[in-house]
């Protein structure tokens, strides 16, 4: 483990940037059409529960990273095997965000630049950022993440003249099923992905504020998702939202006279960047601990290289990415985001109870 500490504000910004991530370029809860706001509220509540689960695990196992917790609770052999699966999951997640980033820029801003080159350039800066350490990552997010909500609000205010404030009505026109599906997808992508932070939580300087920081982060992100949803639907209406690939980008190009597109690129670079940095950092740190190497930086280049290749390999086109994210990702994530953390919490509580009994 690094001998570094991050402040509460830095963790808050890092987590907010991570949760906003690439969701800002894909309309949140698209499947629910005009009932997306209900799906966002449900997933926000679910996200708060999931993050309480993760913070409770971290607080019950102070100063332990994910690998340490898994080894401590499941035993060395089983713990190592599960840790290996988590490392794979983190790399897969990073490659998904790399691909989202590449697909977005190739579709919107750089249509004549090959996606491989865009992803590779981005990956080189990611290597530098991850090797700089958790403190630099914290400071980076402290400076950059506030730009994301500000840019989103500027885009929203700019398009306010083009609107239909009744576009989200009638409520539950298509029934509750699409709302539940959309909320589950939004719960696993991005809220459940915050399992990555079990590697980062031990670096917080004041552990007492951990739950407050994560709750505030979920609240802000849910609020911003709601704002983005209402902004998109009052400008584009639900039928168009259903057809567009990168909905928020379409919203930004609607404003006559001003080109708001660069603001979206900035949002994507910051959100996507923070998310990939956190995920790669977690993968590299856990791999380093699993193998027992002295310095995690040794693995950064090879893990980023693997993620870049994986991002090109895993999906043939953008439609496959959306199909995977919308239909498979939730089921694939259940063991990593819900099942194993719940078992970890139960085992941690049992062990804590036992040690307290032995103490008395």
């Amino acid at each position, binding site marked *: 483990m690094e001998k570094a500490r991050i402040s509460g504000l830095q963790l808050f910004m890092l987590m907010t940037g991570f949760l906003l991530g690439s969701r800002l370029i894909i309309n949140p809860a698209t499947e629910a059409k005009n009932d997306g706001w209900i799906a966002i509220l449900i997933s926000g509540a679910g996200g708060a529960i999931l993050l309480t689960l993760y913070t409770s695990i971290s607080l019950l196992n102070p100063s332990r990273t994910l690998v340490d917790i898994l080894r401590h609770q499941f035993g060395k052999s089983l713990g190592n095997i599960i840790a290996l699966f988590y490392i794979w999951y983190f790399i*897969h997640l990073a490659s998904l965000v790399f691909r989202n980033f590449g697909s977005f820029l190739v579709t919107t801003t750089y249509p004549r630049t*090959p996606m*491989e*080159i865009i*992803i*590779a350039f981005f990956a*080189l800066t990611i*290597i530098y950022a991850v090797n700089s350490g958790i403190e630099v990552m914290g400071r980076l997010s402290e400076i950059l993440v506030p730009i994301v909500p500000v840019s989103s609000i500027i885009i929203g205010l700019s398009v306010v003249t083009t609107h239909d404030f009744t576009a989200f009505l009638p409520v539950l026109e298509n029934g509750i099923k699409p709302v539940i599906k959309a909320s589950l997808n939004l719960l696993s992508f991005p809220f459940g992905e915050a399992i990555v932070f079990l590697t980062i939580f031990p670096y917080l300087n004041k552990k007492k504020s951990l739950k407050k920081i994560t709750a505030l982060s979920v609240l802000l992100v849910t609020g911003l998702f709601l704002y983005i949803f209402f902004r998109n639907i009052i400008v584009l209406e639900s039928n168009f939202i259903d057809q567009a690939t990168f909905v928020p980008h379409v919203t930004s190009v609607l404003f006559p006279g001003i080109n708001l597109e660069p603001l979206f690129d900035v949002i994507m670079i910051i959100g996507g960047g923070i998310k990939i940095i956190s995920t790669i950092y977690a993968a590299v740190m856990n*791999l380093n601990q699993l*193998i*027992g*190497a*002295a310095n995690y930086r*040794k*693995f950064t*280049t*090879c*893990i980023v*290289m*693997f993620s*870049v*290749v*994986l991002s*090109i*390999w*895993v*999906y*043939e086109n953008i439609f*496959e990415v959306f199909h*995977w994210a919308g*239909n*498979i990702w939730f*089921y*694939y994530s259940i063991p990593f985001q819900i099942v194993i953390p719940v078992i970890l919490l139960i085992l941690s509580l049992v062990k804590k109870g036992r040690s307290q009994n032995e103490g008395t």
Partner: protein
Amino acid sequence: MIDMNYNMLIVLVVFTVLVIYDLQKLIKNKDSIKVLISYIVIVASSLAVGLLLALGKRPVSPSEWIEWIFKMIGVVK
């Protein structure tokens, strides 16, 4: 006629240069065999898949395996 993806090839060359630089440091610092083997396995698998992608011969991806498994057990239709 092989339909080469030269962009992928360029990306692989850039990363290979970085990896060689890293490997030099690993050997110099006399890191454990475990570290070296893990490093080489990750890099070799990246290069193998990357080269196949560059040659236009995309192997079946992990996401397709996972989706196939989910379909087999009836989680998704």
